[in-house]
């Protein structure tokens, strides 16, 4: 077969396409550093990392359903429910902290798995199913807490929201999660099959991949990471709030998309999602340091968000065309 591979291993356009969010990130970073003397300090950078870590953990989770071509709107509510349950277990029932954490993580994964199960069993739209479970989970949180915050969390729990030797524990958790799931995506059959499923579900099915289990797995991971987010949040706030993380689902989706994860499924990765979360954290932090009014902040964030995604798609397109051109 004559048309051979003039496949290029590296191209600037390609690199740009893969990392356009990194460029935006660097650009913002430079702007803020110039505009505020307090931005580019170790302390502040650690702050940004700490502030973004909750969003990043949940966003890493939600990346999995998005790679399958789905979505999970229930994560915000799950953060609240799991945060409340963790708090309830360690205070009301005096369950040992590690056990409570394990139980809540398992429950989050289970609830996420139920999302996945409903989606595959009914062949329903993930958007709609998780819209419903988002409401149900929030309601369940209110019922469980009776609308009251749960406080009195022991120090053995709150240290998860603290810093150890100046390093935020949540950041360490984030790193561990990142490495773990990056490994899962890149080096295991599950990861390969997840991408296959997102690329073309029918193909994956015909190749004998059990697409249902993979989907359920993806939603379990999303649920589990939401639970972890809830734990981190409760530790950070020393209490669980029934109205915690309202709207977090949209922020996490935004983070993933900013990081170049395609809502069409089949592409994107955790590094991108992390970058997206950091981008959002940096933006909020920088605008705060500049003393921009919160109203204006929303206008700016909305505009930058659209512009960044446009840039990402455009660079990707350039990249796409160049790879096609390489053939002819």
């Amino acid at each position, binding site marked *: 077969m004559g048309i051979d591979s003039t496949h290029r291993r590296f191209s600037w356009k390609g690199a740009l396409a893969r990392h356009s969010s990194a460029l935006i990130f660097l650009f913002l970073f430079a702007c803020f550093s110039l505009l505020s003397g307090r931005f580019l300090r170790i302390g502040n950078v650690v702050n940004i990392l700490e502030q973004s870590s909750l969003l990043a953990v949940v966003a890493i989770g939600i990346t999995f359903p998005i790679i399958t071509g789905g979505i999970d709107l229930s994560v915000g509510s799950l953060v609240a429910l799991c945060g409340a349950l963790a708090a309830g277990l360690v205070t009301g029932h005096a369950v040992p902290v590690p056990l409570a954490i394990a139980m809540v993580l398992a429950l989050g994964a289970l609830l996420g798995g139920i999302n996945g199960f409903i989606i595959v069993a009914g062949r329903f739209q993930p958007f709609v199913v998780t819209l419903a479970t988002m409401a149900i989970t929030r309601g369940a949180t209110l019922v469980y807490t009776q609308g009251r915050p749960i406080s009195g969390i022991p120090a053995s729990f709150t240290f998860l929201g603290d810093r150890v030797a100046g390093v935020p524990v949540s950041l360490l958790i984030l790193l561990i999660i990142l490495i773990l799931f990056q490994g899962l995506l890149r080096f295991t059959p599950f990861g390969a099959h997840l991408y296959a499923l997102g690329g073309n579900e029918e193909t994956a099915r015909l190749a004998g991949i059990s697409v249902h289990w993979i989907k359920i797995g993806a939603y379990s991971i999303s649920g589990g990471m939401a639970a972890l987010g809830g734990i981190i949040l409760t530790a950070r706030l020393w209490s669980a709030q029934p109205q915690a993380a309202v709207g977090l689902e949209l922020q996490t989706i935004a983070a993933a998309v900013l990081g170049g994860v395609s809502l069409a499924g089949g592409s994107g990765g955790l590094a991108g999602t992390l970058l997206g979360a950091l981008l959002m954290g940096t933006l909020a932090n920088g605008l705060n340091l500049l003393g921009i009014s919160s109203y204006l902040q929303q206008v700016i964030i909305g505009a930058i968000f659209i512009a960044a995604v446009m840039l990402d798609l455009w660079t990707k397109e350039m990249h796409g065309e160049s790879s096609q051109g390489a*053939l002819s």
Partner: protein
Amino acid sequence: MKSSFKNHRQGHHFGLLCAVLFLAALLSLLSPQFLTTRNILNLLLQSSVNALLAAGMTLVIITGGIDLSVGSILGLTAVVTARILQSPIPVPGAILGGLALGAGLGIANGLVVIKGKIPPFIATLGMMTLSRGLALSLSGGRPVTGLPREFLLLASSSVLGIPTPLWIVAAVYLAGTFLLARTNLGRYIYAVGNNMKASRYAGCPVPTTIITAYTLSGMLAALAGMVLVARLDSAQPVMGAGYELNAIAAVVVGGAALSGGAGNLGGTLLGAIMMAMITNAINILNISPFYAQILQGVLILAALFVHSAGKSPSRSCITRHYGPGRGQKFQGGEEV
């Protein structure tokens, strides 16, 4: 009016209608107050804002898109309309101004989606944040009050014993149904939602169709905002926060598929009414409000099961990228 989609979807309507009637019967058994003219009118009135938003949302969803910005557009147009109303400009001018702003924001959404080639979910998510920020900036976070009496008639008057907002809803739904069933644009809306690429190849005016859908959605959000302002005699910058999800829920309960190409307004109206019935029931029966969201979620899931018979949805609108080949996967070496 025979049309293909009606043909295929009558069953859904019937099921939905039965569900509404069943719920109504159940509620009137539980509370004698439910089945009174006054309560029914109230219930319809309470569903009117959501019904208006959901009407626009239905059009957008049929094209295969989604509009997360309706709640914020509602808030922004409410603030702006109220500001105009405070000025010497006459009431009709203010109403037109508000509708024009809603339409303008809708056009912006449509342009970003079709020209910027950004998935609708993302484009309208950005617009949602942006216009809420504008609403807050313009109002300084304060309610805008002291509106002319004539404007308030929009909500407080009634014609033939039926409140004006209900007439507005009726007019919008009749016009919308006509648009979908009996106009070229209606065909194009379904066509674009069914197969975007084929629509281009068949010479449908794809950009116009999509932009029109978002424009109508924005205008209806503005209209809903005005009804709300007239009802409350004030405009608040946070008005409509979170309404987008209610509107989407109404559309979904009404049987439209988020994958696009299917759905109609009759179902959406029933969906909006059903959502309002839940709140109504909770209030009347004095059930703990904590359960409201749970019931709504269960309603959506139940609707899914009801509508699922014989359907196999695949990808939803949120996963869709508009525009020739951009962001899409290529298959067989050619972009698909």
